[in-house]
């Protein structure tokens, strides 16, 4: 008998975590995209006291890495608890050693995986099976889900079968495509869970627990006489495992009516062509097979559910005996292998059956393997049809690819890019929004409403660009009468909503619209005027496709309802009003109900504001009378400037246009090496307001330049004649200080690159004495200044750069140096990027950067464009990201290589000294330049050396010439966030600190894992709320600086740019000059702190004044002068911690949710601050003894 249905909308992560949570007692977690939400849900549920199936709240523990999480899982399992974890990609790789152990010990457990690409030539957060394939040899069973419903159901099947079989399981589903797809799903009741999970199996697990009451030893070391036989002793468990999976599937079917088999076949009973695959792609194939069957084709698909243990018998039984050709699809690539894993498994199964004479197949089918969908590459029905067409060939192509155009190895299959098979009764809608405008949230809400209020099935999938500020989101929503198997993006929509008018100039939004579709535009122009503001391509698209065109000024409606720039409710109301998915009044009621549900906890005022917006929307929504002719010749501007280099024109601009799928294989570097300095070609123009400079007031302090997170405001000094021909409106003034006497000074913004974060205007100390509201920098509406500032910025870029050798080593003058890090896609007002910008100004032309994975690797290295830049000589930072956990070691490797090659170059110089000339050789070898002038001289010597070497023309000369640049010192920087430095990378960091090697480590400390969404790290302070620390962190932040100081020979500094920029400058230059290991910990405000980052610098100042973030420098060189090594750069705390902390939601939230705990933790934190200051103060007075200072 089937259970009554309980349905819900959620994504694959929540669907899987919901079962995992109910079936476990210990949950060990660590954040990694795209699996983090599973851990976040578990942590949030536990903090609210939600019970598992047995009435207990599971113990959720955050570890320092996935390796740590797996260790804790192993331990908890051995001690008898039902235990789980969640992970993906590199996280799964870090778990592999424990996976062998857990499986080797026949320990029932399930680990849930949002399958994600493993980093190779590049990191990718998106989905494929390279991670789970890398764990297929561990002995874990593997169960593959292809949809949100399956992620929920298979979570249970895996747990039930694992308990019964003792084989642990990886339950995996496709990262993003399933983990983040929101879908209407049947929810399993506790009763169903109880029915499938065998109490006796749990009791048996408990009975195997390590306990001194029944002592046993496990984890012995075995020798050649024993190991092999013992390893083979597990075979019966694996043989029985398939039966346990079948049983669990049958039990589930009996209770829910949803039927699964280890290999599910869908298609013609006498199919001649069959595709075999697993994961979400199988749904797209299923849908296509149904369509092809209707066309009379004899095709089918085998969906692999149980991948390990691999049952050849079950596979063969699932394939129609009539089959003549089989295509096996793998979502992975194993270079150099005879084929990808699933292909090899299928070939092996068929071969063995043939050898044994047990094959049920009538023919000896052709079997070919193909790769698809790497890193979430689209996999569409048109591609599936392309595969079936290939399988119909006499000799189908083997080891093919599909979904890309491979013009190098010619592996790719062709497909009809215009073909779609989606039925007419499915409503398809696409929405373009900005990350900050609430579009995605509103669409998730819409799916809930439609799922709950109609008989439709609903699906939502959300695509984000790679920027953190001004990110563009595209929402793909489907609603239809049948379960939706379309695991690919919408290509032809019946509704296209564009929530930002500026997108019309940037994207071909109407490419998504099918003929007769509805086009809704958020427009500042009224219905009777908007037409003339559309670019020609959009006008043409509307006319040619016969679109119905609606406009609303959503910002006006939102503003009038006191909702600021939040237009989500307005646009959602428009969608329901026009689309007809629900009767209009009914829809509005449901929107209001869901508003109440969403915002009730956030206050009635917000609810009422949203209600007002809903009510006001319809009066402002108008249909536009579409003319019959295009009435403008204004076309969309080019994606990048015609001045951009060839690679940017050919490749980057296509990626920027969102059309990267069109680029062929030959367009791409094969080894992940890309040109730098490309962010300058991506003009995003996202600022609503721009800082406008008034030279009449400016005091030329350059602080605005120093704090800009985006290198979008710059200062120059140049001879007056350089300013001749300046465009109208270009502002400049005589330079006041003595060092550039008689030169002219200017401050200039990059108007298309500024994000409008206001930090420069906030830091500006120059006020008009008659009208102090006016400063030397005022934020003014961008539209009024854009054109003039563009012309000025173009002119500014052409002004000569300052001669580096003339720049005095001071904070202010350093800001005349050209930043070699510009326009990163970091959050507007980011607290990290100003430090990196400053580093590149000071050392960028001789800098190697090892960058830990995290925010700084994403804004530093995420395509399409990257921010590290080059100077006029073509020099600039060389940057690489290896992994999250190994960054310190990775950077140490840079230094070791640089030193080794430098020594090699020096040896070659010595060997060829006779013919080079002793004067030059002595100068080259003796120089250890520490100043810009010294560096320039050494570079000039290298030029001279090369000229001399060119005259010899032999191999020895060529060898030296190649490495001659290493005679100029290099500056190695190891950069990463606190998640790396305090947690996952700490072991390596500690080792590098102990090495004494000349590397510089910059920790951008946001006190949480920012990139994955604000999870607590060991840098999270006492009393702050973070994910995985929902009740406020109960222990204090690790004092990383103190740990490093304990070595005695490490330069250590703690800095905060907003608190004291001169100290920041001093610390970074000292760290770089220190001939050993340096560690600089930089306070970085972050959106995860929960306050308006416009106040970031002021908060940094308060962090210092309260003693929350003391500034100091610990320089072992002071020992030689007999001075204390530690120098405190900030005084005794002047303010109470609360005066800093309660400006931020991370602290303030606790005050609201747990007031007593907040008060207790605040008291403890204050005491800790006072104690720490006293300790630092005492240390700062310790004078080295004579012995030490020798």
């Amino acid at each position: 008998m089937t259970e009554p249905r309980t349905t819900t909308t959620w994504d694959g992560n929540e669907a899987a975590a919901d079962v995992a949570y109910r079936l476990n007692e210990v949950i060990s977690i660590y954040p990694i995209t795209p699996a983090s939400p599973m851990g976040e849900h578990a942590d949030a549920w536990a903090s609210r006291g939600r019970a598992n199936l047995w009435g207990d709240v599971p113990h959720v523990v955050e570890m320092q890495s996935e390796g740590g999480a797996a260790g804790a899982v192993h331990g908890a399992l051995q001690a008898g608890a039902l235990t789980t974890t969640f992970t993906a990609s590199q996280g799964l790789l870090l778990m592999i050693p424990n996976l062998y152990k857990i499986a080797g010990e026949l320990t029932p457990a399930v680990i849930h995986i949002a399958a994600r690409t493993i980093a190779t030539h590049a990191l990718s957060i998106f989905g494929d099976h390279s991670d789970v394939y890398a764990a297929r040899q561990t002995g874990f069973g593997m169960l593959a889900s292809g949809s949100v419903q399956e992620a929920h159901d298979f979570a249970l099947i895996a747990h039930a079968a694992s308990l019964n079989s003792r084989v642990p399981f990886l339950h995996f589903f496709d990262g993003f495509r399933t983990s983040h797809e929101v879908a209407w799903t049947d929810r399993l009741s506790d009763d169903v869970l109880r029915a499938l999970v065998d109490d006796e199996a749990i009791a048996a697990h408990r009975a195997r627990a390590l306990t001194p009451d029944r002592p046993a030893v496990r984890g012995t070391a075995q020798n050649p006489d024993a190991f092999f036989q013992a390893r083979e002793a597990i075979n019966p468990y694996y043989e029985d495992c398939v039966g346990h999976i079948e049983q669990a599937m049958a039990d589930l079917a009996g209770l829910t009516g949803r039927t699964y088999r280890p290999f599910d076949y869908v298609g013609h009973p006498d199919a001649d062509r069959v595709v075999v695959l697993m994961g979400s792609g199988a749904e797209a194939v299923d849908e296509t097979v149904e369509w092809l069957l209707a066309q009379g084709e004899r095709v089918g698909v085998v969906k692999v559910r149980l991948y390990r243990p691999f049952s050849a018998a079950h596979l063969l039984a699932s394939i129609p005996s009539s089959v003549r050709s089989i295509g096996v699809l793998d979502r992975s690539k194993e270079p150099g292998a005879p084929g990808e894993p699933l292909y090899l498994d299928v070939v092996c199964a068929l071969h063995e059956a043939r050898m044994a004479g047990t094959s049920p197949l009538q023919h000896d089918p052709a079997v070919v393997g193909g790769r698809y969908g790497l890193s979430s590459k689209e996999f569409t029905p048109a591609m599936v049809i392309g595969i079936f067409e290939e399988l119909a060939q006499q000799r189908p192509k083997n080891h093919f690819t599909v979904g890309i155009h491979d013009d190098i190895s010619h592996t790719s299959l062709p497909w009809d890019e215009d073909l779609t098979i989606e039925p007419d009764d499915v409503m398809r809608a696409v929405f373009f929004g900005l990350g900050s405008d609430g579009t995605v949230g509103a669409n998730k809400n819409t799916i809930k409403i439609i799922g709950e209020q109609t008989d439709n099935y609903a699906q939502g999938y959300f695509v984000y660009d790679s920027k953190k500020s001004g990110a563009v989101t595209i929402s793909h929503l489907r609603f239809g009468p049948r379960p939706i198997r379309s695991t690919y993006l919408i290509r032809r929509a019946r509704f296209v909503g564009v929530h930002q008018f500026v997108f019309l100039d940037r994207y071909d939004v109407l490419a998504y619209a099918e003929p007769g579709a509805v086009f809704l535009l958020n427009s500042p122009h009224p219905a009777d005027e908007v037409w003339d503001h559309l670019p020609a391509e959009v006008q043409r698209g509307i006319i040619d496709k016969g679109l119905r065109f609606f406009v609303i000024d959503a910002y006006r409606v939102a503003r009038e309802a006191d909702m600021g720039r939040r237009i989500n409710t307005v646009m959602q109301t428009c969608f329901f009003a026009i689309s007809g998915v629900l009767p209009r009044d009914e829809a509005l009621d449901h929107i209001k109900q869901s508003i109440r549900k969403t915002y009730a906890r956030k206050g009635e005022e917000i609810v009422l504001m949203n209600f007002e917006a809903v009510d006001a929307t319809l009066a402002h929504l108008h249909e536009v009378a579409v003319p019959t002719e295009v009435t403008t010749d204004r076309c969309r501007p080019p994606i990048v400037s015609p001045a951009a280099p060839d690679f940017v024109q050919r490749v980057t601009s296509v990626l920027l246009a969102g059309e990267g799928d069109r680029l062929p294989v030959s367009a791409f570097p094969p080894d992940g090496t890309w040109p730098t300095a490309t962010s300058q070609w991506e003009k995003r123009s996202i600022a609503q307001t721009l800082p406008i400079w008034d030279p009449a007031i400016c005091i030329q302090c350059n602080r605005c330049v120093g704090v800009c997170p985006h290198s979008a405001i710059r200062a120059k000094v140049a001879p007056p004649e350089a300013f001749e021909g300046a465009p109208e409106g270009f502002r400049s003034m005589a330079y006041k200080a003595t060092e550039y006497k008689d030169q002219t000074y200017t401050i200039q913004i990059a108007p298309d690159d500024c994000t409008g974060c206001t930090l420069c205007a906030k830091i500006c100390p120059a006020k008009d004495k008659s009208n102090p509201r006016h400063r030397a920098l005022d934020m003014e509406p961008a539209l009024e200044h854009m054109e003039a500032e563009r012309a000025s910025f173009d002119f500014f870029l052409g002004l000569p750069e300052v001669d580096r050798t003339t720049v005095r080593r001071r904070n202010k003058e350093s800001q005349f140096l050209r930043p070699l890090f510009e326009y990163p896609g970091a959050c507007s007002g980011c607290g990290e990027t100003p430090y990196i910008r400053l580093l590149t100004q000071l050392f960028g032309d001789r800098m190697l950067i090892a960058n830990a994975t995290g925010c700084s690797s994403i804004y530093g290295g995420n395509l399409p464009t990257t921010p590290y830049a080059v100077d006029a000589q073509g020099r600039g930072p060389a940057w690489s990201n290896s992994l999250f956990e190994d960054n310190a070691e990775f950077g140490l490797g840079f230094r070791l290589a640089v030193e080794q090659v430098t020594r090699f170059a020096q040896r070659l110089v010595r060997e060829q000294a006779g013919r080079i000339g002793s004067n030059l050789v002595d100068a080259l070898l003796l120089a250890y330049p520490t100043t810009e002038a010294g560096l320039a001289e050494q570079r000039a010597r290298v030029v001279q050396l090369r000229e001399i070497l060119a005259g010899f023309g032999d191999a020895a000369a060529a060898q030296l010439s190649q490495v001659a640049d290493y005679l100029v010192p290099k500056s190695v920087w190891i950069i990463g966030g606190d998640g790396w430095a305090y947690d996952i990378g700490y072991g390596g960091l500690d080792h590098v600190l102990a090495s004494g090697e000349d590397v510089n480590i910059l920790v951008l400390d946001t006190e949480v894992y920012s990139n994955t969404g604000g999870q607590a790290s060991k840098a999270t302070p006492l009393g702050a709320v973070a994910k995985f620390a929902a009740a406020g962190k109960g222990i204090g932040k690790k004092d990383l600086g103190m740990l490093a100081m304990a070595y005695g020979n490490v330069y250590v500094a703690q800095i905060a740019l907003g608190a004291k920029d001169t100290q920041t400058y001093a610390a970074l230059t000292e760290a770089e000059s220190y001939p050993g290991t340096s560690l600089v910990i930089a306070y970085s405000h972050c959106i995860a702190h929960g306050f308006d980052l416009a106040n970031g610098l002021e908060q940094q100042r308060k962090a210092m004044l309260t003693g929350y973030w003391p500034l100091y420098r610990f320089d072992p060189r002071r020992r030689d002068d007999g001075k204390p090594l530690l120098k405190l750069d900030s005084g005794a705390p002047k303010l109470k911690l609360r005066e800093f902390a309660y400006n931020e939601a991370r602290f303030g939230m606790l005050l609201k949710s747990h007031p007593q705990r907040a008060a207790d933790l605040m008291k403890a934190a204050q005491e800790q601050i006072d104690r720490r200051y006293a300790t630092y103060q005492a240390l700062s007075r310790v004078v080295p003894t004579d012995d030490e200072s020798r």
Partner: protein
Amino acid sequence: MDLSTTYMGIELPNPLVGGPSPISDHVDASRRLEDAGASALVMHSLFMEQILREQQALADLDAHSHSNAEASSYLAEPTDFALGPEEYLEQVTRLKSALSIPVIGSLNGTHSGRWTRYARLIEEAGADGLELNVYYVPLSGDEGPMEVEQRYLDILESVKAQVTIPVAMKLPHFFSAPVHMMKRLDAAGADALVLFNPLYQPELDIEQLEVRPERPLSDPGSMKQRVLWLAAAFEKVSCSLAITGGVHTPTDLIKSMMAGADIAQMTSALLIHGPDYAIKMLTGVREWMAEFEYESIRQMRGSMSLARTPDPEAYERANYLKSLNTWHPGSALR
């Protein structure tokens, strides 16, 4: 000796009422005040801006939600979040259950709007009365006196329509015709008028060119202005009258009563000396009454008002002339 009085229709054993201060944030301190003899407690205000700002801030936390593939949010979703208004309402209930004296809620805002519904919520939470604190400083120059007055009337009307408990209006001192305004509010249904709201005063930082608002605690000198308008309003309005600001000693309280107040709210003095200071106050009042043979507070109430004082001119222009005549320019130079 009878110290009882009636305020907004509520019978009180004496006229000493705890004014709005952080004392009402703490049940223990409030109980001490009750034990020391205060006859009622006015809570500190729930601010319109606080209601909006907190909810806005919470909504703003969503500003970065769903904007990046790697993170759908950046802060832990709060559990059981108690917002300022909710905390306030809970505190009303807590005080009501801990105290036996009447508890008067207070709501602060500058215009009628959605926030006034908190008046009903404060009533539902158990408050015995409500003080409406309309702190509006008409700095723009665009609003005339009639429009400013109308704000007060609109807010009063909006709140009175939502509650059945008595409502007091706390007033600023800067109306063109304060007594006329008090009469209008009386006619519009105010159950009491509270004189006066302290004005936040700017401190100018002449180096940073910044303005910092300051709210000094009242001193006994603050009282005289209030006494003037109490004396003027007595018997011209039918509702209760209260003084707030400057009542620091027993004689201050007696003066207030004689000018026409039904109660005196004490805030600064209690913050300076602690809640137990109420004992000293009431003892002092009793001793004074005994010494001068007063039987009750009601007996003295309004005795020095404009309507009853033997020398009404002393409150008016004559008073001004008298002051001028006694001022000697040379005294400042000596």
